[in-house]
């Protein structure tokens, strides 16, 4: 039968509709995307690179929402509290875990982990407790450890190797100049370099965190206070803080931090955090720099092996600790793409992906990566990172952590930078503030 014009027109129309429908379906598959929220820093750039593999494998496009550290908590906690759908995945700070779990911001991952064979015992213990668990030390998981991090130190290897500098140091302190192992040695080295002329330029002893607005000075001072006996509360009686937060050791630790600030920092470092430290170190201003391990790959690349060395946070009379940083990756419960987001976590947890994550500038928390025989030699800071991850302590992760943090910021900055009152008064005041905070939170 010869098709009439009408039939031909009908077939063409149907074919067009079918083609359009198929085309739009394909377009929908291609348009699948996930938004991942994190801070704007070097590891975030590495994650962008890494995530290209996920897109290649699944066809799901990745979008990224990175904000500077100074507004990171403000911005993303506002997003979470307002039940925003902006972030499908969030790499949230370790302190957010309590509030995000109790407020229903994060999807609980236990069932997902069980179903996909992801075991938390495969990850570094401190990171599981710090980034994933709420309540702490219970098997309730709200995040996958994503970016292991802690406070470490860099030093000017080239200055430490200068013969005249070494000679002067030996003459003054009767020992060889080396990266400090405890806080007494640290003070000696810092004082030694303070004001010294190196290559015709005045240099300073040390760079430490002093930032007031977010978390800086707290993340700095705890590295000394832990070593001198500071505890957040009575290990046998939770939330009992008197005698632990303001113990004699804690007071001494705070005094040491102030001593470092007064004697051995560069002028103007009164509200300084990560980026100021990096600038001060790179520009040859300071001999030693406190900062997060996360920055060390970039710093090493920028300065070269001759100029930069690394060391673990010094020890104190009551122990050897370091401040935990880092974050876990969580699925936001308000996301419309929870399944894809869970797929991303499943992909990210694979050993091969974790290995690549470490190689391109992230810090994996997977034991298979960090406990591999070749890991300590994989980067000059890797051995110190391994040691540090075994001695970390973290700040409160309670739902009301922000109040607790801001109170500590205020008390410590008032004493260390503004020089008001004494260390004992500052910590007694902190106990008072924290007691009120916990009372307000019903604890």
């Amino acid at each position, binding site marked *: 039968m010869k098709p009439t014009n009408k039939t031909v027109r009908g077939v063409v129309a149907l074919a067009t509709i079918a083609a359009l429908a198929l085309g739009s379906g394909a377009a929908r598959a291609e348009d699948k995307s996930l938004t991942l929220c994190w801070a704007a820093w070097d590891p975030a750039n590495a994650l962008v690179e890494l995530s290209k593999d996920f897109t290649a494998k699944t066809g799901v496009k990745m979008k990224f929402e990175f904000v500077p550290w100074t507004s990171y908590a403000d911005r993303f906690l506002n997003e979470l509290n307002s039940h925003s759908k902006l972030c499908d995945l969030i790499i949230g700070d370790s302190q957010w875990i309590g509030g995000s779990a109790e407020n229903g911001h994060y999807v609980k991952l236990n069932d997902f982990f069980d179903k996909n064979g992801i075991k938390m015992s495969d990850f570094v213990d401190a990171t599981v407790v710090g980034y994933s668990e709420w309540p702490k030390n219970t098997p309730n998981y709200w995040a996958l450890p994503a970016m292991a991090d802690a406070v470490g130190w860099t030093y000017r290897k080239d200055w430490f190797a200068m013969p005249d500098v070494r000679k002067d140091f030996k003459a003054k302190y009767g020992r060889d100049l080396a990266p400090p192992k405890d806080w007494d040695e640290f003070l000696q080295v810092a004082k030694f370099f303070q004001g010294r002329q190196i290559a015709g330029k005045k240099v300073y002893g040390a760079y430490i965190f002093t930032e*007031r*607005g977010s978390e800086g000075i707290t993340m700095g001072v705890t590295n000394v206070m832990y070593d001198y006996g500071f505890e957040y509360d009575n290990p046998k009686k939770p939330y009992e803080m008197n005698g632990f937060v303001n113990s004699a050791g804690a007071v001494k630790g705070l005094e040491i931090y102030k001593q470092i600030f007064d004697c051995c920092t560069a*002028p*103007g*470092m009164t509200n300084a955090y990560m980026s100021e430290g990096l600038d001060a170190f790179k520009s040859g201003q300071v001999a030693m720099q406190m900062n997060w391990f996360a920055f060390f790959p970039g710093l090493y690349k920028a300065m070269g092996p001759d100029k930069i060395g690394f060391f673990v946070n010094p020890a104190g009379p009551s122990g050897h600790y370091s401040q935990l940083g880092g974050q876990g990756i969580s699925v936001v419960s308000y996301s419309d793409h929870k399944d894809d987001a869970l797929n991303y976590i499943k992909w990210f947890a694979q050993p091969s992906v974790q290995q690549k994550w470490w190689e391109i500038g992230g810090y994996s928390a997977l034991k298979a990566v960090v406990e591999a025989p070749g890991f300590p030699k994989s980067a000059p800071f890797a051995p110190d990172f391994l040691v540090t991850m075994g001695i970390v302590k973290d700040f409160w992760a309670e739902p009301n952590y922000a*109040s607790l943090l801001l109170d500590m910021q*205020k008390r410590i900055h008032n004493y260390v*930078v503004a020089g008001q009152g004494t260390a004992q008064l500052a910590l007694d005041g902190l106990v008072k503030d924290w007691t009120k905070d916990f009372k*307000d*939170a019903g604890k």
Partner: protein
Amino acid sequence: MNASVDTPETTAVRVTSGAARRIRLRGLSDRSIAWLFITPTIALLLAINIFPLIWTIQMSFTNYKANMGWLRIKNVGIANYSDILGDPDLWAGMQTTAHFVFWSILLEVVLGFALALLVNHKFRGHSFWTTVILLPMMLSPAVVGNFWTFLYQPQVGLFNYLVNFFSGIPPSSFQMIGDVQLAPWTIVLVDTWMWTPYVMLICLAGLRSIPDSIYEAAEVDRASAWRTFWSVTLPMVMPFLMLAVLFRAIENFKMFDMVNLLTNGGPGSLTETVSITLKRAAFEKWHTGWSSALAIILFVAVFGAANIYIKFLNKVRQR
């Protein structure tokens, strides 16, 4: 294309409906038309001003925390208010704010008026210099706060080098932002730098509004320049000056962005103005009830002071 072509029928329909509308509007009273015009504005005001205010007042009597929705909201009576009014840290913040408001306005008024007197006279390059003077107020406070942190930097900042140039004090030997004594003055200085041109503009408007005939009369009376200034210029400009003071006082009382970026309230809490305290309590600590009470206290204080001031301003104008 033919959709826009009028046919006699469609024109007739439009004319009929237009006429009907006119008839309907003609049926409305003046009062109804007035209501018709102001209703959207009233609705908008209610939605974005009055409702939030009432909501804030209500929250100020509770222990509500916006980030902890699972906690039961309890009515705490006036506990938030008494806690705020008895909080020594908050009074210290009030003192910081008062110091900032008082000194910045004093300097801005003196310098702004002086600049206005200068700019009121024609001189070579008058337009160029007027534009240069006005530049700081055209910048964003956030930008100003940020770049002044660099200018105040003790090692590389221009400010310390200028002090060194004029006084011989080594630039690295002092720091503006981190020093307990100097930090409160840094915010005064930057605010003065930024907003003096604004006060100058208002004063200039005042100076230009004085009729020449008054000056001519003063000249006929052989009044000295000093006498003319005290008896003619200053009284005539006074309402404008007072208006500038009102605008700047309200603005500086709630100053946040510039101070936050410049000093972050530090060192310690020495430059923590009440607006920074309020922001930290509301959006960092999430003490929503407590911060609502503080917002109400500040609102009442500013509203009350501004009303008293406006009454005083009106008296000055009547004189």
